[in-house]
């Protein structure tokens, strides 16, 4: 339906090949149906590309005359739907947006950071799973990369929905970007709901303390919140997959903080890096470090049962042991790493 709705009644029929007369031979009908399907597919493809190009061409050719409201509205519409599908899923994930964003993310994944992902087989191929990772890098690139690692290197090509920090769900540009790429705001309600629906979730329990770490504190995992992720995992009987990300700490080395600068913008911290804010927008360019994303053995919490979620001592113990596991994985990687840039 979303494809059908992209009709722009120009250039119609131009591409349509003259219809051959159906022959009475056996199998001809199947052949014809196949041809028609092929034709339809080509036409749909053409229409999707056309609508934006046609709208732009119209605007350019009519010059200042294009500045009436109706054509401006049509142009904006074509621009918007070139990037967005007309329907999102219940949580706001947009398939076409993800598709359009993918080349850019893939460039970051394969060329810029040359991500090396190991242990993706530990991620369950179906059913609920909770990927728990260390957070770093000022901006939530690490979440997008974990998502991409699971999508590309896991045979089931699953969508791992990331639980985004409150601050990212509030910021302009970043909020729709994250929600359209499948993230939801990190809250126990959201996590429990999604896990009960059998989704794969990714969470960074360090939260703001992790992502805004100073450079000298790098790879020292901060406190794992209040163990909310463990409670949700216990309540829903979901396995926890520890995940260690190395390389993301150095993309924006935080040498200082000027939190008072960020307060008027509603930011919980305001990082100062060697390039930001001194170089302006150029300072937002992340450094091309070499990344590795390691997934560890799943931790099954089934033995404790859902009632374990009500035992704060148990919850804290599990949270601490998950933190230690990830810290060990990070340390192991760091010991083997010879260069920040080349791994």
């Amino acid at each position, binding site marked *: 339906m979303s494809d059908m709705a992209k009709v722009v009644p120009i250039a119609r029929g131009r591409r349509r090949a003259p219809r051959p007369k159906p022959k009475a031979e056996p199998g001809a009908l199947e052949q014809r149906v196949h041809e028609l399907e092929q034709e339809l597919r080509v036409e749909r493809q053409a229409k999707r590309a056309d609508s934006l190009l046609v709208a732009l061409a119209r605007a350019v050719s009519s010059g200042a005359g294009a500045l009436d*409201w109706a054509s401006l509205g049509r142009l904006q519409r074509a621009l918007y739907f070139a990037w967005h599908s007309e329907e999102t899923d219940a949580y706001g994930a947009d398939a076409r947006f993800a598709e359009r964003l993918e080349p850019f993310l893939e460039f970051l994944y394969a060329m810029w950071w040359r991500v090396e992902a190991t242990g993706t087989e530990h991620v369950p191929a179906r059913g609920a799973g909770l990927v728990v990772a260390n957070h770093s890098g000022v901006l939530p690139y690490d979440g997008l990369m974990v998502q991409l690692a699971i999508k590309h290197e896991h045979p089931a090509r699953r969508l791992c929905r990331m639980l985004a920090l409150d601050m990212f769900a509030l910021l302009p540009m970043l909020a729709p970007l994250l929600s359209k790429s499948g993230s939801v705001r990190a809250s126990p309600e959201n996590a429990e709901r999604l896990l009960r629906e059998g989704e794969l979730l990714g969470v960074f329990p360090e939260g703001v303390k992790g992502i805004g770490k100073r450079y000298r504190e790098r790879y020292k995992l901060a406190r794992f919140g209040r163990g909310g992720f463990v409670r949700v995992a216990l309540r829903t009987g979901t396995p926890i997959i520890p995940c260690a990300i190395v390389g993301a700490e150095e993309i924006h080395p935080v040498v200082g903080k000027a939190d008072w600068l960020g307060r008027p913008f509603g930011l919980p911290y305001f990082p100062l890096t060697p390039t930001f804010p001194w170089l302006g927008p150029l300072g937002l360019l992340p450094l091309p470090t070499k990344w590795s994303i390691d997934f560890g053995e799943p931790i099954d919490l089934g033995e404790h049962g859902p009632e374990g979620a009500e035992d704060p001592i148990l919850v804290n113990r599990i949270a601490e042991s998950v933190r230690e596991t990830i810290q060990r994985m990070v340390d192991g990687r760091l010991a083997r790493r010879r260069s920040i840039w080349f791994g």
Partner: protein
Amino acid sequence: MARIALTGTASFLGGRLLRRLVAARGADAVLAVDITPPPTTLQGVRHRMLDLTLPGADRRLVEVFREEGVDTVFHTAFFTTPRRDTSYSHELESIGTLHLAAGAAAAGVRHLVLRSFTAVYGARGQNPSFLTEEKRPDSGSRLGWVRDKAEAEEHAFSFSRRYPGLGVTVLRFATLLGPGVHTFYTRLLSKRAVAVLLGYDPLLQLLHPDDALDAAVLALEHGPAQVVNVVPRTAMTLLTALHLADKVTLPVPHPAAYPLAELWWGAGVGEAPGAFLDCARFPFVADGAKARSTLGFEARHSSREALEAFLAYRYPEARPPAAEELAVSEAGASELGA
């Protein structure tokens, strides 16, 4: 015979519900309580002229409910569109509901149904993806529009606690949009250009009035059910809605937009107070699972279908491209005909 009393029959939803009930149960089964009489086309509907804001309205309501043998009250006298006269909307929504609940409790009414809004949860960045009925309304909101409705709900529940015979249902309807709806949302959708917040595109739930009426009728049949969200089948994003309607969007950075909108509203031009921009910034998507399980309510329309039904109604002469395309697509033809 036990009658259903309806307040706010001059409102869109109240009027439509009155028609639906008259058609289903006969004119004698309903009683319109409003300061304006019901339309003359509805012959034989009993009407009591009553101003809920006046002191002593509760005493009059007791008399009216006893005389007419009312056992169920459906209260729809709420403002969908924010008013500049905030003291009057406070009197009608908060105090009016207080009077109504007091009158209903004293007259031995069995079931009080309140029309409410999912917007009372408050549009906030911290909202979960689906708001459930357990979440309390945002009684500390910056918007009087929200606070008054939150207070009205609170009044109804406090009377229900004190008078166990009085059961309460609060139906929190998602934003209504469809043929015949006239709210500030539809006024915004009737402009050629709409200001939006730069870098925000929250999910919206647009409820078709037919679905709202179905839920209202089911709630009357079911009996007291506490709070129930009434939402469409699926949500859509704000910008998708505006672009499907072929609007020109003018993105404004949010730090500038709030004071500007407030100024615009204060100058008598804007459609809503500045704090309403939260609804264009953050989602307030409610979960419809309880309506399904307790009332057996299943929305027939998605947000998109509600929007398209509205556009076909608003622009009947030149159907916008959204409607044209829909006519050729597989799902749309029936909606446009209806």
